[in-house]
């Protein structure tokens, strides 16, 4: 128990957090549970915001937040080990400390989605950043219309949060459709790209708010499929990735046209970034 806990809004100095739990999700992806190691802690996160996690001696990386508890300061992050920093983060042992700063960035527009059908389309490692959206909608279920999660992965072995997917899929107040790009003959689920789930998903396109996260090319095709289904472009939101360093809109590493992805995003209305996503050099 931390005496006199103090919440600190996102700044430049990392705060010490201790790894309290760790679970391997796939061959190269881990879910880490963190708690504040001292009295100071990060301020509560809104769904869609991200943290900068610092593996001492290796460096810092922007990591989406799979769950956060404002009261205890507990954080959950799911990380794919694809470079020096994320490999060091995933190699952190339980009980060890890492640095963390945040919250950073714009959140998913949950207030705007009240009363609307909520369509969440996640691809690959895109599921963790929308997990807090799903949890929030499920916790305040009466405030929203239908809830659909359309999730695509590379293969069955690459799917994250298997237990949660099963639990959500069993709920009568939520539709869950999962598909993979390729699978062995023993796979009994869907095989096909995530866009194939959109035409027949159960939502009213005229009253839907869509939240899309995944690799950029996947999002582009997904947005096209949502628009073809009839979801107005201004009600489609995407979460972008860029190389983020400062996370506070100073260094410019993450700029997409005039937008700082770290500060103005990572969640954007699609119409705000559409023209920049079409520029090959950006």
């Amino acid at each position: 128990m931390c005496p006199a806990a103090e919440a600190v809004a996102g700044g430049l100095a990392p705060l010490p957090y201790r790894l309290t739990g760790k679970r391997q999700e796939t061959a190269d992806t881990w879910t880490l549970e963190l708690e504040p190691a001292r009295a100071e802690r990060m301020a509560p996160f809104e769904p869609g915001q991200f943290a900068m996690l610092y593996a001492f001696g290796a460096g810092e990386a922007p990591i989406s937040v799979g769950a956060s508890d404002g009261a205890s300061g507990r954080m959950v992050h799911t990380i794919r080990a694809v470079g020096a920093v994320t490999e060091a983060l995933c190699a952190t042992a339980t009980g060890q400390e890492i640095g963390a700063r945040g919250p950073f960035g714009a959140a998913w527009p949950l207030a705007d989605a009240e009363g609307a059908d909520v369509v969440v389309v996640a691809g690959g490692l895109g599921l963790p950043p929308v997990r807090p959206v799903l949890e929030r909608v499920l916790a305040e279920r009466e405030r929203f219309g239908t809830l659909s999660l359309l999730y695509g992965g590379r293969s069955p072995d690459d799917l994250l949060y298997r237990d949660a997917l099963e639990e959500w899929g069993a709920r009568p107040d939520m539709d869950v459709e999962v598909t993979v790009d390729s699978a062995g003959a023993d796979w009994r689920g869907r095989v096909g790209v995530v866009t194939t789930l959109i035409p027949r998903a159960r939502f009213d396109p005229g009253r839907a708010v869509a939240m899309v996260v995944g690799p950029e090319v996947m999002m582009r095709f997904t947005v096209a499929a949502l628009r073809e289904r009839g979801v107005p472009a201004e009600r489609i939101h995407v979460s972008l990735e860029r190389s983020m360093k400062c996370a506070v809109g100073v260094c410019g590493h993450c700029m997409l046209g005039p937008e700082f992805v770290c500060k103005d995003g990572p969640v954007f209305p699609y119409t705000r970034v559409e023209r920049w996503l079409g520029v090959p050099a950006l």
Partner: protein
Amino acid sequence: MRTLEDLLAEVEAFEGMAPEHLRLIAGCARNVVFGDGEWLMREGDAADTFFVIRTGAVAVSTHVPQHGALLIETLHQHDLVGWSWLIPPHRVNFDVISNGTTHAIAFDGACLRGKCEQDPVLGYDLLRRFSAVLVERLQRTRLRLIDVYGHVPGR
């Protein structure tokens, strides 16, 4: 009791089709049911049938020597299964197996080809509709070739 025409009218691929054309193609159709693991089509067989799935799902696969079946795609309610009936040499290119119980409408390809030959307006309409399905499947295949989840920049 709903007729085959009623059921076909609900299928996206036949949306807006003239009633007389629906009646004509329904004349080449019948209801079928497949149990789990039952074959709808086998690679190399004569392609004399195509299906519209009413309920259930099927797996399109191919056999890879020393590996076994490789699952290519699954198809679901209201999807069209098979187009080799339309294009010579009318041979099935992939295996199609039922995943669980599948209710489908089976079309006699030779019967349909005959009606298309006799009625070019119907033939053009069907070809247009199948082309749309083919293009959609081609786009899906291209998207899979990109392997969008293969490389993850940043977080």
